[in-house]
């Protein structure tokens, strides 16, 4: 992970508190705007997707990682470089499926959930669902269709927070005839 310094926002860091609280304000607002948790989950995923689509550009420009050759490499880049760069944490990678097309990210101290306690009436809310959207959106831009979901969440009393990632297929470039 080599970086060249001195370009714009390159390595600018900030206190996570403003980020955490702003995210909380967003989730609270969505809970007011939508009737049920399912819709909030969907909206968070959608917003995450929009973020991911833009984030990947920023990431590729800054990180100097080339094309990943397989899903294992992708997992490494996500956990060790991308999460570190954007959220300041390094999730561990576990539970590979035998076919190598599925793995889990285990998040300790997820900065999105600091100071958060889910009220009882939001038991189906997936508070950090934005992250799933971000991962899906970012990977789609590098031609990987991936299924991302939370399977465990400390906010719901599980002992760890686990995001399950499943590779679906490679997205072929379908350029219309005459382009390029």
């Amino acid at each position, binding site marked *: 992970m080599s970086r060249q310094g001195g370009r714009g926002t390159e390595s600018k860091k900030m206190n996570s*508190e403003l980020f955490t609280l702003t995210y*909380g304000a967003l989730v609270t607002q969505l809970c007011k705007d939508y009737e049920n948790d399912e819709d909030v989950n969907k909206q968070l995923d959608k917003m995450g997707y929009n973020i991911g689509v833009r984030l990947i550009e920023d990431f590729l420009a800054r990180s100097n990682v080339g094309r990943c050759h397989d899903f294992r490499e992708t997992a490494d880049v996500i956990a060790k470089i991308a999460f570190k760069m954007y959220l300041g944490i390094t999730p561990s990678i576990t539970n590979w499926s035998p076919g190598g097309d599925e793995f889990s990210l285990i998040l300790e101290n997820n900065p999105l959930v600091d100071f958060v306690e889910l009220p009882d009436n939001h038991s189906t809310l997936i508070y950090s669902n934005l992250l799933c959207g971000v991962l899906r959106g970012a990977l789609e831009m590098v031609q990987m269709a991936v299924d991302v979901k939370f399977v465990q969440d400390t906010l719901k009393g599980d002992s760890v927070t686990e995001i399950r990632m499943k590779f679906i297929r490679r997205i072929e470039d379908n350029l219309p005839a005459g382009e390029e």
Partner: protein
Amino acid sequence: ELSLAAFALLFSELVQYCQRRVGSVAELQERLAQLGHHVGLRALDALVARERPGRRETKVLGVLLFVKGPLWRALFGHDADKLEQANDDDRTFYVIEREPLVNTFVSVPRENSSLNCAAFAAGLLEAVLGASGFPARVSAHWHKGTTLMIKFDEAVIARDKSLEGR
């Protein structure tokens, strides 16, 4: 610590979400202010517990300095650039920021040139002042960079005067 880019992307998505649900610039700023409100209330409790254990500000000047220093440092990573009082009105104060964080990545489209995403910071500040016992109206303006104009309730200034000399 996390990347500024993460916040910038989140904030931008937040602004766009609000934009889709409102009809005017004023409404959009109002929404951003509400979100800022939510953040301000929560930031205040955590910060007071950490920085001023067991003590709260009772004077207007004290609370303004708290805002300019510790609050701004904790949230935005640096002190606010300037704190000024209006010459002609003892209720009005200004917190001036040349380059507010929330505006760093925002390009304002020409047709909405009055839009100021610092409305978020204004809402945040209003909540902090209100919850500290200094009810005020805070609004964001384009002036010397971005200026947050604080207009305290009459009662706040009256109380401050009566406390003078004690």
